[in-house]
């Protein structure tokens, strides 16, 4: 199978720019610099590439919303705040192939006429910051970044910016607020970042994996990329798989790959002779699937939606038959309660109370009406907040309870 992201992952010395250039690194950037920016945007549109952070919005379309001839500078922000539970794919790309990210960012910046760009890296990943900074320093020394990108009349600076422990800052307007030096409160949209983003200037926020897909697309053409995958989900996608599988890790597969093949082949299946119980396919914010619901499901945006879940970030968590689902939900609910920024009342109160009720249930102090109360709280949060964090709590609450209700009832005294 063709790889567009992890093709260099087994090569040694990925951080050493001499080796990177020998194997063709930065050739796609050189090609892009010979194209017109508008043609580049059309090429990315034609590829069908969709944002890999979780929302799946078409990347080329997002770029085309940036106004032409604005009197303000345009910024590209790389969202490297990877914090969705179950997700560790961007980390793999940054640790193992940092120059691929820099090349993808440079291509995007050139297409957007952006001269100053930041990588917003979650603070916990400080050890990756060392790798990225070394790669950035090498790129500057090699003339790939700086006043004259690859010898062309185009200047570009890329800087690293560390977050400081806030899941919400992965939401793009929260990321912008945080980068501006404020509390990471999401903003009401519109206006959208494309017109009013970082420092009230036109801004594009793209995920690490999205940017890393660009060099392959430019090198091989949008048609070759669009030839892979399904009708609406093009190309390849990284899935990070964890939990009860024999080979947890990050794997690249073509969009539309069968979910059960991924679990049994790439991930090595459920170990210790146990049975599969459930799968969260796209990070803790998406609805859980029972084992029997996974049969026949394909890994692409539309198939997972049809199956009642979502592709999300591709952070797959696998549960074997020993997992007690109310406890798993309680762990997840505690997370959203901790990470709610507190700006919107339905989310601040809803995530907090859901977590408390679940802890009470686990402690054997719950009553049957508490289960429906949790569903009512979910209804009261859904769609009533500025950003999707509350919805991200609603998805697991609703799906865990409706699909595993008897386990919740067994915990109740009456």
């Amino acid at each position: 199978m063709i790889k567009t992201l992890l093709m260099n992952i087994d090569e040694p010395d990925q951080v050493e720019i001499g080796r990177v250039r020998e194997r063709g690194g930065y050739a796609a950037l050189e090609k892009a610099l010979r194209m017109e920016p508008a043609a580049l945007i059309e090429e990315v549109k034609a590829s069908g590439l969709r944002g890999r952070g979780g929302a799946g919005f078409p990347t080329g379309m997002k770029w085309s919303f940036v106004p032409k001839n604005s009197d303000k500078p345009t910024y590209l922000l790389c969202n490297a705040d990877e914090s969705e539970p179950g997700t560790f794919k961007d980390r793999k790309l940054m640790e193992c192939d940092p120059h691929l990210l820099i090349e993808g960012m440079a291509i995007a910046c050139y297409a957007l006429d952006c001269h100053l760009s930041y990588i917003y890296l979650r603070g916990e990943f400080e050890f990756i910051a060392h790798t990225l900074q070394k790669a950035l320093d090498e790129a500057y020394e090699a003339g790939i970044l700086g006043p004259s990108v690859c010898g062309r009349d185009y200047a570009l600076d890329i800087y690293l910016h560390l977050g400081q422990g806030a899941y919400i800052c992965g939401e793009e307007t929260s990321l912008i607020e945080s980068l501006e030096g404020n509390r990471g409160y999401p903003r009401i949209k519109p206006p959208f970042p494309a017109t009013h983003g970082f420092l009230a200037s036109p801004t594009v926020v793209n995920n690490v994996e999205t940017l890393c897909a660009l060099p392959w697309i430019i090198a091989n053409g949008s048609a070759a990329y669009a030839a892979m995958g399904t009708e609406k989900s093009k190309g390849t996608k990284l899935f990070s798989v964890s939990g009860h599988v024999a080979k947890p890790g990050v794997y690249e597969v073509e969009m539309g790959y069968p979910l059960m093949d991924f679990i049994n082949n790439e991930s090595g299946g459920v170990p210790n002779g146990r049975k599969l119980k459930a799968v969260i396919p796209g990070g803790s914010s998406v609805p859980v699937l029972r084992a029997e619901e996974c049969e026949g499901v394909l890994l692409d945006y539309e198939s997972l939606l049809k199956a009642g879940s979502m592709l999300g970030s591709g952070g797959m968590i696998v549960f074997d038959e020993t997992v007690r689902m109310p406890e798993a939900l309680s762990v997840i609910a505690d997370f959203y309660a901790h990470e709610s920024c507190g700006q919107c009342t339905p989310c601040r109160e809803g995530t907090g109370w859901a977590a408390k009720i679940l802890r009470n249930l686990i402690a054997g102090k719950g009553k049957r009406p508490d289960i429906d109360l949790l569903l009512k709280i979910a209804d009261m949060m859904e769609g009533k907040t500025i950003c999707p964090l509350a919805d991200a709590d609603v998805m697991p609450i609703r799906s865990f309870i409706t699909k595993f209700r008897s386990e919740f009832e067994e915990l109740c005294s009456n």
Partner: protein
Amino acid sequence: MIQFNEEAMRQYQAILKRYPEKRPALIPVLILAQKEFGWISQEVAEYVGSLMGYPASDVLSVATFYTMLRKKPVGKYHMEICRNVSCWLMGTYPCVDEIKRRLGVEAEEITEDGKFSWNLTECLGSCGTAPAMQVGDRYYENLTPESVGEIIEKLAND
């Protein structure tokens, strides 16, 4: 009164140069201040505020939003162990029991010698190598109660 030493002041100037305006430098400067002074106390917030021209209340309102900017002192080695789904599935809590047994302190407390403190933390992005913990700028992964014990012994002798 606290203040940045010469090297930290040089880093402060370098941070300012990375941004088109002053304000986006605030969090990077707070990270630098925490490295220098250990945590973001009222005094540190006042110093950073005076350096950059913001009231201490403004600086603290930002700092208190971010869990990695510390509101109180921690041990020399602050062990943050992930409590989220994949780490929980793979055995966070047996490791936590071992940490408590070895250190004899509860979450957020500091050992008498000032060397250790610990806390639970949210997803570290280390789900495929769970359970995991962060100590400073280093990750320890695929933890077991045994390996946690060895890590504590090694750090204790550092």
